[in-house]
């Protein structure tokens, strides 16, 4: 087996992502199923209106957060597999040279499904821990008298078993595609030539060219960096609004999920880009480029993506809450006015700039610690 069980520890990003997705989805879906079970018991117009609004909320939250996190998890899984194959190309090349079929090697990648299972299972259990308080908050006015928590096995299958199987299959299929390259390329770790070869003299400096090249070689990371700042921006601003629109608990839950997702994704993206450029950084340092040059070459190219992610996150959270207030809760009494919160946005932006630039600076400094001799003697 090319992928060992301990390798899935490195996929903790996927586990965290699926954990967050399943926690949110199970909270709302379980609530949705329990609500639909008491649909016939609503005998007054207030409780019917409240019931309809709650049903709509559950659907919107599941579709938006569950869908968004599921797509991100798939992208992350594809990225991990590509990265794993790139960094283990020699071992895979040896197996292919010995006569192992692509399918036999790819089968090993199904282990990646376990990381999804771990995340889903933790998320599923966590949602049941939070559920009593969640139900109480959702029904704090007591309109739905008969509402109680029930276990729905279908949700266990849909949110735990199915994602595990689907992601294991996706991992195998994706690996099969990636393994379709000549054995010698895997053994030598040959990197495909990229970019256009215009026959004119390049005007860009080496550092600028290196920055573009790093971006081109790891395009997926642009998505992760943007997603990380998107989560940071959207979830923090949304949590501030949620305090008024829903409850403090809801706000806190969104804040925690946002921060966990943002930092996990950023950590994965930045450590991956540094690890995959370790030899290039070492070579730059051997030649006399300092850590600021290395940071400019390897990390600074992602800055625009980070700030674009922040802007999209701000717009997204505003649009989502606007839809919730104007469409989902239209006609429901007691829903507070909602407007874009500029002070919160500016504070979040200021915190984001300090945190993002601080983290990038720290990673830039960490490049000094890459051992030159060890890299050169590999």
């Amino acid at each position, binding site marked *: 087996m090319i992928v060992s069980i301990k390798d899935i520890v490195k996929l903790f990003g996927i586990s965290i992502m699926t954990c967050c997705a399943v926690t949110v989805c199970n909270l709302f879906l379980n609530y949705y199923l329990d609500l639909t079970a008491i649909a016939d018991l609503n005998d007054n117009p207030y409780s019917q209106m409240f019931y309809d609004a709650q049903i709509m909320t559950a659907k919107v939250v599941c579709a938006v957060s569950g869908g968004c996190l599921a797509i991100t998890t798939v992208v992350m899984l594809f990225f991990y597999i590509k990265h794993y194959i790139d960094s283990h190309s020699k071992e895979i090349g040896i197996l292919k040279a010995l006569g192992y079929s692509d399918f036999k090697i790819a089968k090993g990648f199904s282990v990646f499904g376990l990381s999804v299972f771990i995340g889903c299972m933790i998320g599923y259990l966590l949602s049941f821990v939070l559920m009593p308080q969640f139900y109480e908050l959702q029904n704090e006015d007591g309109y739905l008298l008969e509402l109680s928590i029930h276990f729905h096995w279908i949700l266990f299958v849909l949110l735990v078993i199915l994602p595990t199987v689907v992601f294991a299959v996706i991992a195998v299929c994706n690996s099969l595609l990636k393994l379709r390259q000549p054995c010698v390329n895997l053994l030598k770790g040959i*990197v495909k030539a990229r970019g256009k*070869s215009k026959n004119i003299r390049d005007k860009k400096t080496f550092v600028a060219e290196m920055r573009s*090249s790093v971006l081109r070689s790891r395009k997926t990371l642009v998505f992760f960096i943007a997603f990380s700042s998107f989560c940071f921006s959207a979830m923090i601003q949304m949590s501030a609004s949620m305090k008024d629109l829903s409850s403090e608990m809801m706000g806190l839950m969104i804040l925690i999920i946002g921060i966990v997702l943002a930092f996990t994704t950023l950590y994965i993206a930045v450590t991956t880009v540094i690890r995959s450029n370790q*030899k290039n950084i070492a070579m730059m340092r*051997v030649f*006399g480029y300092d850590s600021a040059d290395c940071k400019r070459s390897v990390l600074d190219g992602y800055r625009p993506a980070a700030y674009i992610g922040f802007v999209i996150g701000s717009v997204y959270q505003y649009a989502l809450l606007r839809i919730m207030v104007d469409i989902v809760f239209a006609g429901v009494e007691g829903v507070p006015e909602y407007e874009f919160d500029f002070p919160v946005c500016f504070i979040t932006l200021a915190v984001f700039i300090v945190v993002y630039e601080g983290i990038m600076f720290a990673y830039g400094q960490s490049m000094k610690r890459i051992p030159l001799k060890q890299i050169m003697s590999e």
Partner: protein
Amino acid sequence: MIEIKDLTKYYGKGESRFKALDGVSVRIEDGEFIVILGASGSGKSTFLNVISGLEPSDGGTVDYDSRQLDKLSEKELTKFRRDNTAYIFQQYYLLPHLNVEKNVRMGADLDNNKDYLKFIEAVGLSEKRKKFPAELSGGEQQRVAIARALAKNPKVLFLDEPTGALDEKTGRQVLDYIIKLQQEQGFTMIMVTHNGNIAETADRIIKMNSGKIVSVTENSA
């Protein structure tokens, strides 16, 4: 001038600790071409790594024109490398996503050298300057590494088995390029090899064994 005095280097810990360099002393004049010969494990690569500042020594000193290498801070060491040295390794270490020209600019930009294309021409790769490393043969890749190192106009060029991964004919060609350029530009060149045939072209041959210099031979030719 490089003055190396009583250089020692240890590897490992406890019982597995061993002396890779054992009191090595030598003086290298500006513009000299030195070949360090020795069998595998003789300490020649460690010697090159230590005198080039790639790794610290455990004792002794390395002075470059009275600047002591182990007294330099990380920042000063980076500046020292930027202003003085260049390296050519057996495994080339070209940047795989950059074409030949951009790899050579890696060295050229450090010296603000706008005339870097002449180095690509000098190693005979003008026609392939838009090719990527994966599209070149081993010999061609090593020639790119040479052009990259020379484009920063180093005062000292370190070479660690530069022809080790090449066949004899290509290795000879690559070596001829390096020697021709060294003679034209007059930089100091320190080359580690286990190939005795290469040594005949050097000004001095330093033979190493068990971390010590066992002989220094002047080449009069």
